[in-house]
């Protein structure tokens, strides 16, 4: 495990690089993109598990925190999605340099999948994209977060307007809400000439439609369901982890058997 700071010295990003633990065939370089808000906390252990299995399979893995999240510089109230997309590009460059890779695979979970798809559009060095329970319908995602927030506030005897517009302890900024509200399947970025695996923990017409659209655009896209718990948005007062082994195993297969090497 090699934790380090990278990127701009004024606002460094925290990353953890895991070198491969075996030399099984040609190496793959994999960047993991976290979801946002409380889902970042909830998936941290699952990402660690995914990483452990990927490096055992011979992959180089980099997972990192976006600006204003986790250990990276900045406050959450200063974060923008545009900045996070830039951070993904910075992390791709860092990973390529660390393991001398020409091509990388990017795996994103929930909104991390969405950001990854947006960030890598037009990048020839990202040959493979794995979208894990991607957020496709932005307005529905915003509604889900705000309903949860309102219910939590009510349960604690606070009005919906009391406190902040935070969701499970993380701010949901107006600029972020506006961008999410404009995000739907038709606005999903094209991933032509790239392999894209849309993996879901439960069936989703929307995710299947995304894969179909990407195929029509010329991507080698697939849609797979690995029945697992995917309640990433759920939270409790004590902090809990979700480690859905079924879909993690599915993603390992997609990444290591893709034939995409560094």
């Amino acid at each position: 495990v090699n934790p380090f700071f990278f990127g701009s010295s004024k606002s460094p990003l925290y990353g953890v690089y895991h070198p491969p633990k075996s030399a099984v065939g040609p190496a793959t370089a994999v960047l993991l993109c976290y979801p946002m808000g409380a889902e970042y906390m909830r998936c941290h252990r699952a990402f660690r598990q995914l990483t452990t299995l990927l490096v055992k399979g011979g992959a180089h893995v980099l997972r990192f925190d976006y600006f204003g999240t986790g250990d990276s510089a900045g406050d959450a109230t200063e974060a923008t999605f545009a900045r996070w997309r830039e951070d993904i590009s910075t992390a791709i460059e860092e990973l390529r340099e660390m393991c001398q890779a020409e091509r990388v695979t990017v795996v994103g979970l929930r909104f991390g999948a969405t950001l990854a798809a947006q960030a890598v559009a037009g990048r020839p060095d990202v040959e493979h994209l794995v979208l894990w329970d991607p957020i496709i319908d932005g307005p529905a995602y915003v509604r889900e977060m705000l309903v949860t927030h309102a219910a939590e506030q009510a349960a604690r005897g606070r009005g919906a307007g009391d406190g902040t517009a935070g969701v499970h302890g993380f701010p949901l900024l107006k600029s972020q809400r506006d961008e999410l509200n404009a995000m739907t399947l038709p606005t999903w970025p094209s991933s032509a000439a790239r392999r894209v695996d849309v993996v879901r923990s439960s069936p989703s017409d929307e995710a299947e439609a995304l894969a179909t659209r990407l195929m029509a655009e010329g991507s080698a896209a697939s849609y797979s369901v690995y029945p697992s718990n995917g309640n990433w948005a759920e939270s409790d007062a004590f902090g809990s982890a979700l480690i859905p082994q079924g879909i993690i195993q599915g993603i390992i297969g997609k990444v290591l058997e893709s034939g995409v090497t560094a």
Partner: protein
Amino acid sequence: VIREKVLKFGPTRGLVGVLTEPPPDAAPRLPVIFLNSGILHHVGASRLYVRIARKLAEMGHPCFRFDFSGIGDSEPRRDTLAAAESAVVETREAMDLIGARKGGSDRFILIGLCSGADMAFKTAQVDERVVGLVQLDPFAYRTTGYWLRHYGFKLFSVRAWRRFVTVRYARWRDARAPQPPVSEDEAATYVAPEYRRRFPPREQVAEAMRTLVGRGVRLLHVFSDEQTDHINHAAQYLNAFPDVPFGNQLAVAYVKHSAHTFTELSDQDRVIDLVSSWSASALAPLDAGSSTVASGRGVELAAR
């Protein structure tokens, strides 16, 4: 400008932490070490530890947030030491690491939430380098006042009685309803590690507190509004320990309406204010090397 760096330590360098360093021109103050709460990694619940560390670093405290073995970014241990024991060992290793750095210190402040508070308390008992302790939702014990507040007004509240009947009926109904089977797949894939917290006997905690107070350790205890099975008012903590001469070494606060992990940003702000104010008042004498033990009954900070 504060700077952060990653440090690896421990016998196999498998432990990972982030050191937040104060601005170079800040007057040096005691280092602060943050302990994981449950399985939450070193950024803390909702990133609370990061925010506290950066605030304290601005005030001059070097702050070190690390992961216990097997949690967050740290590797699992290779021996069979139980987690409750290894946490103390690793916290002491973190103190060794930070203490040996340039401008290091042989005195430390520990901060922890929930199980992190328990481990900080446990470490403080066995390591005299700990001179300050911030416990977020530490052990608490019921008093007569607790029961009066708990039941007092409810006896005369129609709403409370209605709720009592509704809840009891729902429990009775749910207990009789057939339970949906949990599939093997679901049981195998849904892993929500549980932290089963056991409060020691009050006398045991009182004895340990007397030792810490006798050593001059400064204490800040902040309670959320989610341990209501144990505590429902800041003053209750002091009343539960009439046999501990806290003096003004203890400050207690109760953050009304807050979740156990101080989830709301406004609650996080409140905790950050409490910790930084406590640093400015209670810890300042320690920076000068004083270990005076004062008299009194402890200080109840204004609750919201």
